[in-house]
């Protein structure tokens, strides 16, 4: 806690509530993401993790509450101003959301190509410089998303999110459906982005190994709200029943000594 004192707040969510008709999904969510911090969000399926992320990026409007990104209030912000802030964010969606009418390399450089004209050769070169960090082969660049495997699509989506080196990463289950080796490659990437580039990250995940690798702080969404938060190590001492359920399947000795 001490070392956070002077750190800049990157994202601040206050009193956020969201429901769909009668279905209350989130109630009074409060948290902060500091500069250089990697935050993991865990929670049962359907607990509202993706809904929280979509509120932060403005795809869903909260019923009440405030969301500040770099001190700018996002709720009810005019579209053109919101857009400017979103450009600094690297976002992946749970199901990829790759543009299926564009080739993989066009997907990856989409945001950059929108701002700056590039010929195909430059574009592919830029795309390749990113995918090689993700263990992908250059052959996939000229294919369409529908022509590569699910795990490859996942990585293309991550490549699209990190293209242009955004300072804030928001990842919805980036490692689900990946083999452990590739999964840890993605974790490595998130960690590098946070540690060496000074970025900040929010990662939604079900993968506890991943939580221990990437997170400085863990937040549990349960019963519509943040019912627990702490460091990954705090999880082992927690009396919260849900947290215990999450760590039960893993061999704590092994991970603690890692």
């Amino acid at each position, binding site marked *: 806690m001490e070392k956070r004192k002077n750190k800049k707040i990157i994202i601040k969510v206050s009193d956020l509530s969201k429901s769909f008709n009668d279905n209350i999904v989130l109630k009074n969510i409060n948290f902060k993401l500091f500069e250089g911090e990697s935050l993991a969000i865990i929670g049962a399926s359907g607990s509202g993790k993706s809904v929280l992320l*979509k509120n932060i*990026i*403005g*795809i869903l409007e909260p019923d009440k509450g405030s969301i500040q990104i770099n001190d700018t209030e996002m709720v009810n912000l005019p579209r053109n101003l919101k*857009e400017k802030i*979103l*450009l600094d*964010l690297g*976002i992946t*969606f749970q*199901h*990829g*959301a*790759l*543009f*299926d*009418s564009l080739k993989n390399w066009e997907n990856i450089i*989409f*945001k950059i190509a*929108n*701002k700056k004209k590039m010929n195909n050769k430059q574009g592919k070169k830029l795309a390749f410089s990113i995918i090689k960090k993700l263990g992908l082969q250059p052959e996939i660049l000229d294919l369409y998303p529908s022509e590569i495997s699910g795990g490859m699509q996942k990585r293309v989506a991550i490549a*699209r999110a990190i293209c242009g080196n955004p300072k804030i990463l928001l990842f919805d289950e980036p490692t689900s459906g990946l083999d452990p080796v590739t999964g840890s490659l993605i974790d490595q990437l998130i960690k590098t982005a946070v540690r060496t580039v000074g970025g900040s990250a929010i990662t939604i995940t079900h993968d506890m190994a991943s939580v221990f690798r990437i997170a400085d702080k863990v937040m549990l969404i349960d019963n519509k709200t943040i019912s627990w938060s702490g460091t990954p190590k705090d999880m082992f001492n927690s009396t919260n029943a849900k947290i215990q359920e999450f760590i039960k399947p893993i061999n704590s000795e092994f991970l603690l000594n890692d």
Partner: protein
Amino acid sequence: MLYLFLNILGTTGKKFISFIANIGHFFIFFGSAIYWTFKPPWYLKKIFQQILDIGYFSLPVVGLTTFFSGMVLALQTYNGFTDFNSESTVARIVLTSITRELGPVLTGLMVAGRIGAKMAAEIATMRVTEQIDALGTLGTRPMQYLIAPKIIASLVCIPILVLIGNTIGILGGYIIAIYKLNFNPSLYLYATIEYLQLIDIIQGTVKAAIFGLIISMVSCYFGYNASKGAEGVGFATTSSVVISSVMILTSTYIITALFFG
């Protein structure tokens, strides 16, 4: 009894209100789409792709339908008006029916079936798979990137398709008149040219442009507002074809009444 009555009233009222709300919703979409259609920058590559898709690849269906309609018209006119089976009657009826009505309407309906369904399915799939959300987070306005090119291309292509369809339809009539009804080719052609009216062409082109607007707006609207799941895509597709076809047939009456009524 009273309960049943109130219940029916309530349901009908609810349906009616949601219908009005939907119309309002559509016009808001319409206004926003028009705004983004005229606002630079334009995605020229996207517009070009759409023109190819809507214009060029619709040529076979449009050509085929108008060609056979021209042939049928010539044959029917000949059989129906045996008293006046002169070159000039057949030529004139074929020409006027096609340029005023059949050319634009058949082209409109064909394009609504082919392109409207495709546009709606494409946009609805993008909605359902969160691609539209992703577009918004990657520095693009979905309206400008996705919808505007389709509207521009429809406005450009459908009038041109109608002009081509008209020509092919008249040719269909000519072929029947000459090879089946054994009319004199030069008399038939002369009559066709004589009765060719600029106002008919203008009216047909205006219709075509309005049909283009209807097809692209309705399809994009249903696609853009599709609800989740494969069902949402199917609903968007069928609704857009049905609604744009009905709107084409309704508006053709209104435009005809305005021009000739």
